[in-house]
């Protein structure tokens, strides 16, 4: 899957969690812009993990602050899997 396909899939998965309908850009942050709390993060990460059959450990999650970084990480993880 190329980066654009990964992006499209994650965008689709993010939609139900994006309660305020924020316009998601590469630099959109999960904590401040999307206001995800820890439980939302867990559910959202679980959806992505199941979709791409990967693990995004808490350690890796700590490095991901914005949407672009998430797409990059998932793109790399699913390529390596």
């Amino acid at each position: 899957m190329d980066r654009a396909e990964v992006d499209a899939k994650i965008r689709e998965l993010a939609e139900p969690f994006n309660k305020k309908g924020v316009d998601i850009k590469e630099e959109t942050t999960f904590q401040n812009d999307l206001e995800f709390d820890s439980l939302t993060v867990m559910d959202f990460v679980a959806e992505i993990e199941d979709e791409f059959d990967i693990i995004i450990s808490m350690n890796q999650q700590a490095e991901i602050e914005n949407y672009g970084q998430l797409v990059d990480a998932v793109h790399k993880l699913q390529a390596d899997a």
Partner: protein
Amino acid sequence: MSEGIIQPDQPETLEGDGKDLFSKFDDIIALREGLLASGQEDPFNLVMEKVLSPTRAICNGRETILLGTYNYMGMTFDPDVVEAGKQALADFGSGTTGSRVLNGTYQGHKECEEALREFYDMDHAMVFSTGYQANLGIISTIAGKGDYIVLDIDSHASIWDGCAMGQAEVVPFKHNDIEAMEKRLKRIPEGAGKLVVLEGVYSMLGDIAPLKEMVAVAKKYGAMVLVDEAHSMGFIGEHGRGVVEDAGVIDDVDFIIGTFSKSVGTVGGFCVSNHPKFEIMRLVCRPYVFTASLPPSVVATAATSIRKLMHGSNKRAHLWENSKNLHKGLRDLGFQLGTEEPQSAIIAVIMPDLERGAAMWEALIRNGLYVNLARPPATPANMTLLRCSLCAEHSEGEVSQILEIFEKSGKEIGII
């Protein structure tokens, strides 16, 4: 250093508009001040002026029924336990002033570990200075960089801190979700070390884990299993060994973590295991090595209490009765509870929000009942909970009294 006395060593004004390292706590300071400004007694600053028994104390000048102490088996005032402590204090002094691996292992520490081995029928037992340190130490030591820890999202802080300290890859799964756990285990790269961390009883809602299924799944993927049985020791399972015993999987788990600060009635933590190399932990586990060992009186009270808990089946039965009666009574009054059926000695009453939860807590304490107020972020799903933990020493009459206080307070606050 100053070049001259005219020049100060530091800039005269701090940069950042009065911000310092404490600024990160401003939100929580504001939350707390807001709560107290409404005339609340501080739920996190209660002082017990006198403790009358395992179930009664004088709190803020009032005689109060204790329903939030985790003193499940009521061992704190057991005459044999108290006597053992006094004797050890007289014979061995007030403290060891040393690490277990240097001058801090007394006969009492060995006897305490012997009592634990017998209690759990396991080959090895290691006593830590607190339950927190037992989880911190064992988890951080056995799962290091490159290893994977798969754990329930509702795990206790000591488990999370152990994960962080060991620098393993941390992979949480949805609370008690067997399928979510299996999916994560399945995706771990081949050859990586795997540790599954579970709890027998989860202390926030008082629910138990489906250990029979979960341990089987963990074993299927070649993971080691650690189960924290802090809230079950002494009364769940035929011999009080915990949910692992009740679920029939005690022989399949690699480590059981426990504490002396609940059913045992003092302070301290432990790990028991049948792993043939377990004893090496004493040399490589930093939270075990780099702290002073428990005072002789504490290990003496713990050992005595553990041995008495081996024969506590009557008390156990009464505690279950209490748990069932309280659960049914609260539900009949119209309170929303954390579990459909009572699963442990913890009954969690779910509050509509933090404000009314705090108001209810205060009404209960005013009416002579102490429970734990648990609030986000320590709670699952950001709930505000009034956690009730029962004691085998609560009489049937006391449970009725507790229910009366809940009814009165709930009506005062208008949540029932």
